[in-house]
C-alpha cells in the first residue's frame, strides 16, 4: 500500500531535527526549573511523550473500543454515511 | 348523671342535627342511585337549616313579630332569614341536580353510578 511518509519525508524530517538539535548545542536555551535547561530536553521530551502517548492510546483502545451500533442501531455512530452534499448532514 | 343528662338533653337540638347530618352524608356516600344521592344531599342540607334555626331560639322568646310591648323577648330573626336564602339555594341545587339526572338518564340509559362508570371506562379504554 502506498504511504505518504516516504523515505524522503523521513530524511527531511530527520535533517530538520538534526539541525534543531545542533542549534540547541550552538545557541543553548534557558529553563525555568533546571531540568528543562538540560541540552536536548525538548527534543527528547517531544519524541518520548509522543511514542508513549501512542502506546498508551493503543492500550486504551483495547479496553474501550466497541462496535458502532453499541448504543443501538439508531445511535448517531451507527448511521450510514450521508449522501454527499446533502444539506442536512 | 345529671351532667350527662344535661349534656344530652340540653343539646338535644345539636344531637338531632348531627344524627340527621350523618344520615344524609351516609346516603350520599353509600347509595349508587343518583336520585337517592340527591335525597341524601337534601337531608344533609336540611340538618344545617335546623342547626341555624334552633340557634336563633331565645329562651322564652316569642316569634320575632313586633308586638309593641316593651318587655317582649324575641327570638333572633337573623338566622331564620339566612336560612330562607339557604333554602332557596338548596332548592336550586336540587333542581339543577335533578335536571342533570334526567340528562344523564337520556345519555346513558341508567342512573346507577356503578353502571355509568362502567360505561365510561369502556369508552375511555376504547378511545
Amino acid at each position, binding site marked *: 500500500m502506498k504511504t505518504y511518509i516516504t523515505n524522503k519525508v523521513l530524511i527531511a524530517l530527520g535533517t530538520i531535527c538534526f539541525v534543531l538539535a545542533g542549534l540547541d548545542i550552538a545557541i543553548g536555551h534557558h529553563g525555568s526549573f533546571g531540568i528543562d535547561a538540560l541540552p536536548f530536553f525538548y527534543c527528547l521530551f517531544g519524541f518520548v511523550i509522543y511514542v508513549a502517548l501512542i502506546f498508551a492510546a493503543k492500550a486504551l483502545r483495547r479496553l474501550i473500543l466497541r462496535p458502532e451500533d453499541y448504543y443501538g442501531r439508531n445511535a448517531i455512530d451507527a448511521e450510514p454515511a450521508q449522501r454527499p452534499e446533502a444539506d442536512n448532514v | 348523671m345529671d351532667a350527662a343528662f344535661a349534656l344530652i338533653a340540653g343539646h338535644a337540638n345539636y344531637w338531632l342535627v348531627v344524627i340527621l347530618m350523618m344520615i344524609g352524608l351516609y346516603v350520599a356516600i353509600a347509595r349508587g342511585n343518583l336520585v337517592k344521592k340527591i335525597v341524601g344531599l337534601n337531608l344533609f342540607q336540611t340538618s344545617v337549616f335546623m342547626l341555624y334555626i334552633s340557634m336563633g331560639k331565645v329562651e322564652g322568646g316569642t316569634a320575632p313579630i313586633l308586638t309593641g310591648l316593651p318587655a317582649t323577648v324575641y327570638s333572633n330573626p337573623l338566622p331564620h332569614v339566612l336560612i330562607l336564602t339557604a333554602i332557596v339555594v338548596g332548592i336550586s341545587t336540587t333542581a*339543577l341536580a335533578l335536571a342533570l339526572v334526567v340528562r344523564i338518564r337520556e345519555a346513558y340509559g341508567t342512573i346507577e353510578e356503578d353502571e355509568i362508570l362502567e360505561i365510561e371506562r369502556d369508552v375511555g379504554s376504547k378511545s
Partner: protein
Amino acid sequence: MLQALLHQLPVLQIVLPLVAAPIVAAFGGNGRGWMIAFATSLIAFAVAATLFAEVLDGSVISYHLGGWAPPIGIEYRVDILNAFVLVIVSGVSAICLLYARASIAAEVEEKNHAFFYATFLLCMTGLLGVTITGDAFNLFVFLEISSLSGYALISAGAKRDRRALTAAYNYLVMGTIGATFFVIGLGLLYMLTGTLNMADLAARLTGYGDSRTLRMGFAFIFVGIALKLAMFPLHLWLPNAYTFAPSAVSSFLSATATKVAVYALLRILFTVFGFDSAFEANVLRLIVLPLAIVAIFVASFVAIFAEDLKRMLAWSSIAQIGYMLIGIALLSHEGLMATVIHLFNHAVAKAALFMVAGAFMLRAGTTSIPDLRGIARDMPWTSAAFVLAGLSLVGVPLTVGFISKWYLVQAALTQNLWPVALLVVLSSLLTLTYVWRITETIYMREAPAGVRRSEAPLSMLIPTWIFTGLSLYFGIDAGLTSMAASRAANALLGASNLFWQ
C-alpha cells in the same frame, strides 16, 4: 352625577351582570346574547379596573348595601387584594367571552346559546360577588350562585361528550357538600359572635379567645373551601369537569373559579380568623403544606401520562393550586406574595392553554394528544401560544411564572425550609416534562398524512395571545403585579397579628 355613579361602583360590579343575565336569557337569540354578555363583561372590567385604581394606594372602599350600615347590613368591601382578584375575574371573563363566540358556536347547540351566555354571566356575577363582599353569609350565597351556574356551564359540554353530564353531577355533589360545610362552620362562628360581617367577626373573635366551637367552625370552613379550590385529595371533581366542559368554560373556570376560592381561603384565614391561633398554623403546616407538595408531584405525574390535552391541563391545574397553597402555608409576606402572583400567573397562563386546546378542538376535532401530531405546521400561531404560555407555567425567566416561583423559593428558604424549596424547583422539571411532551408532539412529530387543519379564527387567536402576551409582559415588567401582591400581602398580614411578628 358622575361622582354619584362612582360611589355606586362596588354594587354596579355585581348588579350589572346580574341584571344582564335574565336579559340575555330572554332576548339572547341570534347572537344578541353574546353581544350583550360581552358588552356587560367589558363594563364590568372597566368597573373593576376603576376600583383597582382607587384602592391601589392601600385605601379601602366600604359600600353599604341598601344603606344599611354593617354589621347588620351587608357590606361590600374593596381593598387591594380583592380589587386585584376582581380585575382578574372580570378581565378573564371579557377575554373568554371574546373567545367563546367561535368556540361555543361549535361546541354548544345553537338553541342553547342564549341560556349559555346568561349562565356565564351568572357565574361571573357569583365569582365577582364572592370577591367583593364583606359579609360571610353573602359570600356563601355568591359562592353557590357561581357554583350552580358553573355546573350548568360544564354540562353544556354534553353535545361533544356525554361524560360532561356526570362530571357536572359529581362536581355538584361535591360542591354542595363543600358549600354546606362552609355554612356549618359559619353557623358555629355566628353562635359565638352573633355577627356575619367579616371585619366584625374578626374584631369579635379576637375578644372571645379560644374555644372548641371556634376550632370546629374553622375546620368546617377550611374543608369547605378546600373542596372548592380542589385541594388534593379533594380535587376529584376537577379533572373530568375541566376536561369535558366546553373549551371556553374550561378556560374561564380554570382561570377564575379556583382562584376565587383561593382568595376566599386567604380572606377567611387572615382577615376573619386573624391568625393568632396555633391550631391554624398546625393545620397549615401539617395538612396543607404536605398535601400541596404531594399534589404537585402526583398531579404532575398524571399530567405527564395524560392522553388528552385538556385532561393534562386540568391535572396541571391541581398541581398549580399546590404552589398557591404552599405560599399560604409558609405564612410569610413573601409566601403570600408568591401566592397572589401565582394566582395571576396561573389564571393567565392556564386560560391561554385551555384556549389553545379549544382551538385544536375546533380545527382538529379532538384534543387527544396523539392526534395532535404535527399540528404546529397547520396552526403555527396557536401552537406558539401554547409553547409560550407553557413556559410561563414552568416558570421560565421572563415569564410571570418565574417571578412567583422565585418568591416561593425565597419564602421557603427564609424559613429554612430548603427541602420545600428544592421540591418546588424539582417539580418545575415535571412541569417542563409535560409541556415539552406536547411541544414535541405538535412540532416534531410528522402530521398524519393527508390531514390539513386551518389556523384558528382571529376571534380565538386574539384572546389566546392577549393572555400569552400578558404572561410575558408581566414577566418582564413585573412592577405592577409584584407591587400589588406585596401590598395585598401586607394588608393580609397587617389585618392579622401573627404571633411571631
